[in-house]
């Protein structure tokens, strides 16, 4: 019997396991075989965790045979971005500097997914240390977008978006610091969710910018993404920044009822975007209106300052977080240095790629003596203004809708020569991270060339249920 992994939903897996149409080991075998065969097209997986996947699947089958609940993710093949550590499974962070790193422990998100019956299939390619918007900054080569192989899948979680679009995993995990889940989700035509800051433990997520980093799910439907988030979310004693707020039943929120919900359209997010992207997003908003949502224009007046704010804060934090890759505690050590200082400099100079170096340099500069107040402190003050913009907007509306990116997936190589142009493409996503609010991308159609476009939905802190309700209702209206 052949299992078509590319079309499996979590509900289909659950009912197939119940009816004994297949078992979890058969799904894992089919998923691994399909993923290994298809991967050369996209370069989305860096490492397969075959033994671990089959072992987890057998545990699920044993639980079912024993009549115990195998968990809400039983048998679901899940891929994980290679910045999230996995015990015994190589974790490179897309960097040469960690080429041979095999973590001795699991991230909490991984532990929880496996406890819920989820099957870790493998690790996905990404921009080096999650720094990038196109996946071209990986030391292991770019990922190709499954929807258009000459184009980028977005970044930095490009591999995680691509495997879900390609069908080589049913769902996946990414990380989002400035849009690294939502932007690739929109470019690849899948659902991608950045939960509230602190909603998912970051224990075991390789730190990039700690005040902005999130773990979140990718899936082919809002329902599957909501289920995966529910299995990972909640307080973790190993991460003091994880939130104590109780985790609601996200699936219960998917009732299709959005009548009377107020949706804000921030006027600053509808300028400077490509017309086809704008038209598809407007059509999605019309569909929500037709379902009874009230739509009104709002303003997030500090949007224009978000990129400058973000690239100060994230690089400052990155320069500090990446100090640990020094050829001693982690990472490969350069040969032929005579002093300790030389060894540090040489190991880091050889190990990091261009974008990481750029961000470490910028971060070091903005934190250096005499500049701290002018840059870092200033950026933290503007960050507060950006967060206040959202707080004020949410006094008037329940959710906010916007495009995810000003344009669909661009060609591989098109923007690599101009880092500033690449940074500017994050304009619609980074404010969500700066404010720490939940936000997501849900597919809203394709351009004439067949390139997917995403609708972005933002909600109040911890109001993932309303965000999912709107996204799910919209998704249903399209099918």
């Amino acid at each position, binding site marked *: 019997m052949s299992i078509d992994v590319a079309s499996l939903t979590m509900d289909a897996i659950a009912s197939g396991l119940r009816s004994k149409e297949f078992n979890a080991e058969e799904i894992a075998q089919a998923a691994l075989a399909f993923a290994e065969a298809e991967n050369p097209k996209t370069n989305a997986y860096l490492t397969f965790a075959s033994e671990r996947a089959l072992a987890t699947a057998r545990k699920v089958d044993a639980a079912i045979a024993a009549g115990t609940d195998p968990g809400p993710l039983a048998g679901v093949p899940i891929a994980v971005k290679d910045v999230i550590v996995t015990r015994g499974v190589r974790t490179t962070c897309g960097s040469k500097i960690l080429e*041979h*790193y*095999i973590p*001795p*422990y699991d991230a909490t998100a991984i532990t929880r997914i496996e406890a819920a019956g989820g099957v870790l299939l493998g690790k996905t390619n990404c921009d080096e240390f999650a720094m990038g918007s196109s996946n071209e900054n990986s030391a292991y080569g770019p990922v190709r977008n499954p929807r258009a192989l000459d184009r980028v899948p977005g970044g930095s979680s490009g591999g995680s978006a691509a495997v879900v679009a390609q069908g080589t995993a049913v769902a996946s995990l990414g990380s989002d610091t400035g849009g690294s889940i939502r932007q690739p989700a929109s470019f690849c035509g899948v659902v991608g969710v950045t939960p509230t*800051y*602190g909603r998912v433990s970051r224990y075991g997520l390789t730190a990039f910018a700690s*005040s902005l980093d999130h773990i979140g799910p990718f899936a082919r439907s809002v329902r599957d993404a909501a289920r995966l988030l529910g299995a990972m979310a909640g307080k973790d*004693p190993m991460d*003091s*920044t994880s*939130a*104590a*707020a109780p985790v609601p039943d996200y699936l219960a929120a998917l009732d299709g009822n959005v009548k009377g919900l107020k949706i804000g359209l921030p006027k600053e997010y509808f300028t400077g975007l490509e017309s086809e992207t704008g038209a598809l997003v407007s059509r999605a908003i019309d569909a929500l209106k037709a379902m009874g949502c009230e739509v009104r224009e709002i303003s997030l007046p500090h949007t*224009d*300052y978000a*990129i*400058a*704010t973000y*690239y*100060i804060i994230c690089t400052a934090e990155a*320069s500090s977080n990446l*100090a640990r890759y*020094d050829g001693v505690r*982690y990472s*490969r*050590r350069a040969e032929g240095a005579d002093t300790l*200082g030389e060894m*540090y*400099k*040489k190991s*880091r*100079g*050889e190990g*990091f790629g*261009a974008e990481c*170096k*750029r961000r*470490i*340099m*910028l971060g*070091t*500069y903005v934190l*250096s003596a005499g500049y701290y107040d002018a*840059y870092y*402190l*200033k*950026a*933290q*003050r*503007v*960050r*507060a*203004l950006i*967060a206040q913009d959202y707080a004020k907007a949410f006094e008037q509306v329940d959710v906010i809708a916007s495009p995810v990116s000003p344009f669909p997936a661009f060609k591989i190589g098109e923007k690599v020569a101009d*880092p*500033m142009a690449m*940074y500017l493409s994050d304009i619609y996503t980074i404010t969500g991270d700066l404010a*720490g609010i939940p936000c997501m991308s849900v597919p809203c159609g394709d351009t004439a060339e067949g390139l997917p476009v995403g609708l972005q939905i933002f909600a109040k*802190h911890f109001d993932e249920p309303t965000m999912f309700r709107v996204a799910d209702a919209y998704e249903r209206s399209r099918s």
Partner: protein
Amino acid sequence: MKLTDQEVRNIAELANLRLGDQEVEAMAHDLGDILTHIEKLNELDTTGVEPMAQVLFAADPTATLREDIERPSLSNADALANAAVSGGGYY
């Protein structure tokens, strides 16, 4: 805003990064571009605005602390499994 090659080399020294001559030149250009964009923040008067260091939610000051209970940690062998060289003179 423009950075000189010497300024770039000074920052690289602080960051413990060895950069080649070509990298220094490209870095001076790229950082200059980004810093020029960043100057935009000076348009804003932020007097009296509290800096936001972290996304915080209302909670008890000790809510983020766990009970101080002894737990097993990684074994020596696990902790050193990735070390290229261990033992005499290393760890």
